[in-house]
């Protein structure tokens, strides 16, 4: 069975590594890919790293993409446009709290639309 993938984007590599650890304790099967920091490991984001993370996370069921602040969102939007697939969705929910909910939902076999709805319901 395939699951909706989760992509975590942060200015800090540690934030997304830790968030992945937190989710992995609970959810094993769902693809989780991270893009943290710039390509030289500094605080920032990198559109290519985001794009690659999204591609790796997509098992055919689409991807829910989470980001931390400002420019991560811009890079995420740009990567999603470049990929141009309908079921890759950027989530406005908080990075840590939101991705945890999404991973549990995905693990229950929910599709991208239902995950998005669950997040909207939880985080408004």
């Amino acid at each position, binding site marked *: 069975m395939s699951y909706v993938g989760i992509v975590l984007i942060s200015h800090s590599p540690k934030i997304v590594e830790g968030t992945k650890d937190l989710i992995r304790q609970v959810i094993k099967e769902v693809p989780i890919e991270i893009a943290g920091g710039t390509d030289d490991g500094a605080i920032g984001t990198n559109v290519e790293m985001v794009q690659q993370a999204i591609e790796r996370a997509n098992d055919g069921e689409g991807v829910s993409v989470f980001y931390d602040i400002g420019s991560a969102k*811009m890079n995420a939007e740009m990567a999603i446009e470049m990929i141009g697939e309908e079921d890759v969705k950027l989530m406005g929910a908080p990075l840590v709290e939101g991705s945890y909910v999404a991973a549990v939902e995905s693990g229950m076999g929910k599709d991208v639309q239902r995950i998005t709805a669950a997040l909207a319901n939880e985080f408004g």
Partner: protein
Amino acid sequence: MELDVQDIVAWIEKSNENIQANKEYLTTLDQEIGDGDHGINMARGFQEAAAKIAEQTYTSSADVLKDTAMTLMSKVGGASGPLFGTAFLKLSTAANGMDPISYETFTNGLEEAVNGLKQRGKATEGEKTLVDVWSQMMNYFKHETDFHAETIAEKAKKAMEDTKDMMATKGRAAYFKERSVGSIDPGSASSFYIFQALADIVERRA
């Protein structure tokens, strides 16, 4: 006046020089109302863009602008990466198949760049972002009929300085709310250096 491929190459090179020379200053501006990386971000991005362009012999301005755009997008690392990347990508699209670039083509490119910046940043004029410089430059270009080195540089400087009294409502500076008033927007300062470089190229040609 028209700009040929070599002018566009020189524009990117000169932009890079300006940004390298003002790296510290850009960082200081970003320390005041941001995270203090704008100088580093822009210096890294333009260094890579200039290096990439130096590697090749171009026959189309659109290709120069596109390589610049793609390099900025992936190498800058902050909000300004996707933004300047978008601006140069739009200039590239407008220049496609239009060598040498006429004043009109350049002006069309600027218009597309401003639209692209606004869309990418979800920003409009008056929000203390680089949109303020690019938008004012577009208006100025639409109002004129040919490149004028001196006024290009003057207008860009003025547009940059106008951001000083604005309150930021987009990007990192927006977190500082009223405190953001009184500083020049870092991205507007970089934008000024880019237009100043353009003015230099225009002057050299004249």
